[in-house]
């Protein structure tokens, strides 16, 4: 007699297929750069088509016809009118497919035809892709500052730590800072993901920094007698100053605060970036002979016009130091602060005392986490992090959120702040929130929160910290302010501010709050373009010989990560939270690097750039 029901066991082939799917997921997430988008679109389409059951016409035949048309274009047999036919067919499939397998596959094609029309057209008109082939080293091209990552990994492996620092400084004068707080976009594209998982690039950089000791900066070029003013001494300004000095120009930094560092000092707490580590990078930059005027507010003590008169070029890198407001009732009550204000005070050593207090932090970004974790360290009895979306929608790094939770921060997600309740002294006593539910995806692709049918909730709070975004503090009486669109300065891709001859800008004041490595990239870009503007072609270069790759680097191997001090211990102080990786871990991690600078396209056209 047949069994009425049986428990399903995965067949061996199903298991293998699932494993292959996982491999492809990692491969796709790595998104190999340089591939022809039309060719990729065709192959994604055929994969989707293979998943179709074949019942309905639009999916069974339509997807096949879409693929045939795209293939014809790739084969050089396409016509411009084919694009309209592809669009039309894709729309019909989207309209008529019975299930999402076909509809979503057609939608991908549709988005591609719209999104990379010029690539399709190039195939139709010239028989090949537009532009030339850019198969760059994945990590290097993903790094905004294009740091020579495989180069320094190989140097760390060879225990040439000082050379590793020198090589990093070719593109980034903040090796120490980045060893602690870089968000490492490089790792997302690491080709190692195809085998197992990305190389722990930041961990290797930290080893370089830890073992190298003091590495002096290179000698600057001969004096050019050109003078550049840098307004704002954060990472973008300091980076520009470093390279402009190396190129032989005179540089003066005007800094409004009492110390240099910008958000590295006045935004990032010392438990993430120990002050002596920040100071060591700044010391190296200043060792080149950069003039610094701190507590100097351009616009107040000296006008922009005066600066333009006395300098050959200006670089504005004033960051975003004004906290955005929520516009809710009670926001000006006592005990309510903007995140930037509190972190700035701490940066100058003024520690508020939160002992025994209840703190509510509003926001879901890294700044919110910094505030929450700082509040824990300042003795708060209870710290909540209030956010109107879900945890997975938070823009803060997962590592930061996990760290905060481990240190006792309570995540109040799907709670939209409505008002701050005050007592008779006009001091905050609670944050009133409206519970939300997550709902439809908005135009930007994120699911939007909407009011849940639940009543308002009261979160007790003596202190409310608002971390919902930042804007620039405009320079007083300045024409560049005319170029400010809302909260940012407008520039072209080279960093030029409008047609203001010789005025450049970059960093957070142009991009809005961004990562430190993007600010560094902005400073580097500005230095190159200011040098050209001044009539020079100085090249920043490195002559460090890079060790040969190993012949064995492919065996699958787990990724060693940077460990953190235990939460119960670290939450009581402002000392660095990270532990050192062991020498053995570093050795293994460096050996995982696939050396894309030497293998694949790296040995042909996609290899090392030794100068810029």
């Amino acid at each position, binding site marked *: 007699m047949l069994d009425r029901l049986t428990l399903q066991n995965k067949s061996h082939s199903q298991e293998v297929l699932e494993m292959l799917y996982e491999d492809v997921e990692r491969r796709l997430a790595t998104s190999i750069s340089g591939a022809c988008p039309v*060719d990729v679109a065709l192959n994604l389409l055929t994969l989707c088509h293979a998943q179709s059951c074949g019942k309905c016409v639009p999916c069974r035949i339509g997807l096949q016809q879409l693929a045939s048309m795209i293939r014809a274009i790739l084969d050089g047999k396409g016509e411009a009118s084919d694009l309209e036919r592809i669009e039309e067919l894709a729309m019909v499939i989207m309209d008529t497919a019975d299930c999402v397998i076909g509809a979503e596959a057609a939608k991908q094609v549709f988005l591609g035809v719209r999104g990379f029309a*010029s690539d399709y057209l190039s195939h139709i008109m010239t028989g090949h892709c537009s532009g030339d082939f850019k198969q760059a080293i994945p990590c290097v091209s993903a790094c905004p500052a294009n740091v020579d990552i495989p180069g320094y990994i190989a140097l760390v492996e060879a225990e040439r730590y000082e050379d590793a620092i020198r090589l990093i400084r070719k593109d980034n004068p903040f090796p120490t800072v980045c060893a602690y707080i870089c968000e490492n976009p490089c790792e997302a594209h690491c080709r190692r993901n195809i085998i197992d998982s990305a190389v722990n690039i930041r961990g290797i950089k930290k080893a370089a920094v830890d073992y190298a000791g003091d590495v002096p900066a290179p000698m600057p070029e001969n004096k050019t007698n050109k003078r550049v003013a840098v307004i704002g001494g954060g990472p973008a300004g300091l980076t520009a100053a470093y390279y402009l000095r190396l190129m032989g120009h005179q540089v003066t930094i005007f800094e409004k605060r009492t110390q240099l560092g910008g958000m590295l000092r006045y935004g990032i707490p010392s438990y993430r970036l120990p002050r002596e580590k920040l100071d060591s990078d700044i010391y190296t930059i200043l060792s080149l002979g950069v003039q610094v005027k701190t507590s100097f507010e351009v616009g107040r003590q000296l006008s922009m016009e005066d600066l333009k008169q006395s300098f050959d070029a200006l670089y504005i890198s004033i960051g975003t130091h004004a906290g955005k407001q929520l516009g809710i009732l009670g926001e000006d009550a006592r005990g309510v602060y903007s995140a930037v204000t509190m972190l700035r005070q701490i940066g100058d050593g003024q520690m508020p005392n939160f002992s025994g207090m209840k703190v509510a932090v509003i926001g879901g970004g890294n700044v919110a986490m910094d505030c929450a974790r700082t509040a824990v360290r300042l003795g708060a009895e209870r710290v909540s992090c209030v956010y109107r979306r879900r945890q997975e929608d938070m823009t803060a790094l997962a590592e930061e959120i996990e760290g905060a939770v481990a240190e006792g921060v309570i995540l109040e997600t799907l709670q939209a702040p409505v008002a701050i309740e005050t007592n008779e002294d006009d001091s905050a006593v609670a944050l009133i929130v409206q519970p939300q539910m997550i709902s439809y995806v908005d135009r930007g692709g994120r699911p939007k929160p909407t009011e849940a049918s639940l009543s308002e909730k009261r979160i007790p709070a003596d202190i409310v910290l608002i971390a919902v975004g930042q804007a620039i503090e405009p320079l007083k009486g300045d024409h560049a302010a005319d170029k400010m669109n809302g909260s940012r300065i407008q520039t072209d891709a080279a960093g030029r501010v409008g047609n203001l001859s010789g005025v450049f800008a970059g960093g957070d004041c142009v991009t809005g709050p961004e990562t430190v490595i993007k600010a560094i990239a902005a400073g580097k870009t500005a230095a190159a373009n200011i040098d050209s503007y001044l009539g020079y072609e100085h090249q920043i270069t490195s002559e460090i010989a890079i060790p040969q790759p190993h012949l064995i680097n492919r065996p699958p191997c787990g990724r060693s990560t940077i460990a953190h001090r235990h939460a119960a211990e670290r939450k009581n102080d402002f000392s660095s939270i990270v532990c050192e990786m062991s020498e053995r871990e570093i050795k293994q991690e460096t050996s995982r690097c696939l050396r894309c600078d030497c293998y694949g396209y790296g040995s042909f056209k996609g290899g090392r750039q030794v100068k810029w």
Partner: protein
Amino acid sequence: MVTVEIDGHIITAEADMTILSAARAAAIHIPSLCYLENINEIAACRVCVVEIEGLDHLVPACATKIQEGMRVFTNTMRVQKARRINVELLLSQHDCQCALCLRNGNCELQNLAGDLGILTIPFPVEPRTGSWDSLAPFVKETEKCIQCMRCVQVCDKIQEMHIWQVFGSGGRSTIGIPTAVLSDTDCTYCGQCVTHCPTGALHERDDTAAVRRALADPETTTIIQVAPAVRVAWAEGMGLSETEMSTEKMVGILKAMGFDYVFDTNFAADLTILEEGSELLERLQDKESHQWPMFTSCCPAWVKFLKQQYPLFNDALSTVKSPQQMFGAVTKSYFSDTSGIDPHKMMVISIMPCIAKKEENKLENMRSACGDLDVDVILTTRELIRLMKAQHVNINQIDSQPFDSPLGSSTGAGVIFGASGGVMDAALRSAYYLIEGKNADADAFNVVRGIKGWKEATFTIPSFGQIRVAVVSGLGNAKALMEAVSKGEAAYDFVEVMACPGGCAGGGGQPIHEAMECAEARGEQLWLIDQRAAIRYSHENEAVLTLYRDFLGKPLGAKAHALLHTDENWHHKAAYKSQEMVKAIAINIAMSRK
């Protein structure tokens, strides 16, 4: 030094050597295909893969450095299988109709497949197709391209012109140019990509059909000129040894093939020296009115390069035509007058070591004798060899013969035009005479000779003073020199530039030999011919002097100007960027959709 074991042989070699170079130094042959020493070491074809003890995958010998104690096996079953399958894969996308290919018998892929004993291809054979501009002086056959990237690398690294690009990715990646037609790029037609192509994917446009028709047509008088560098290379393709090869033998064969007049481009080279030497002296006497240094103008690839890449130096270029074009202009005027042959019924054919020459005859100012093209057809040395073979001349039974008169007599100064430094050497010999009224020793200027890419010298001519010269060959070197001159880092009076490394001896139209650069050896042959020549000064070429006396008047005179010089304002048409057009159209369409 590092000690390694390759196939059981203990080898000690420099630590930075690759397995391939260490093996070859020890006479162990590892087959390779895409590899080109110092130029293309990208390990693309995976033919040179070898097995290393302790390693789980094979490695390319061309791109893997030796390491102390390494044990290498170059011919295990695993290696043989990998090598064979990789070659079979290449053949599956290659047009294997070898009988129809002009590299038949001289193809690195064919040789390799033969050596490996491949008789069938176990994959569906589907050569890739692509289009090519039929008017271009050289041809790319995608069907034969194995994407070794040598053309890209030679153009990038040696010539620094960056004409060839890789388009697309994956299975659709392909080598090409960014425009629909070659003339829209800055390609100088130097042909170095062609001479470094391992297969028949790149070759000269075959122009032999017109010559064969003319030879068969009794109405047409066929007049052939042979460039200096051809005489030291033609025999390579005929299977003759160096001792069997002689200029006179070549002339004998050409006559047997039926050419009515066999003349010598060397005659026009001597003529060039008289014009160019006189021009140099004229400019030197009025230094303020001229742009410096004066550049030679015999290499059409260089002339195109200068006019495109450094147009501000246009006036510094000598206005004299190249020997090829001077020859055509004199033939269809002076020789037509003296022989009574209707210039419209002449076919002037050049045999050149060059591909760029195939287009030079169509430039402005190159119809100065009778209105027709001064030179009708240009064949490369390789096409000459094919024509010789096709005409079934029994070369063993052919006697050596001298060139015909009057455009066949020349001096040692003419023949060295084919080697880097030759034009400079010859020009200095005559310039010295024109200034001093007596000859310097013919070897007085020999420091400008040799294969080096950028040579400099300063000579003292007693009645004049010092003259600073430079000789460069290879466009990468030309670019470096132009940058130095532009920035004021280098200053010269006279500069010779040849686009191909080593000059015409290494020209893009010369015979191709696997993994061999022949410019130096051929150049030495040319210098030897000069050493042995009875006359070694262009200004002593009696036939040239007669030409001036009876026809041209004096150097730089009105008639000489009309026939032998270009109008200095002529220029190559500006590059037409169709790639930008595509982008503009794409943007328009994208906009109109919104």
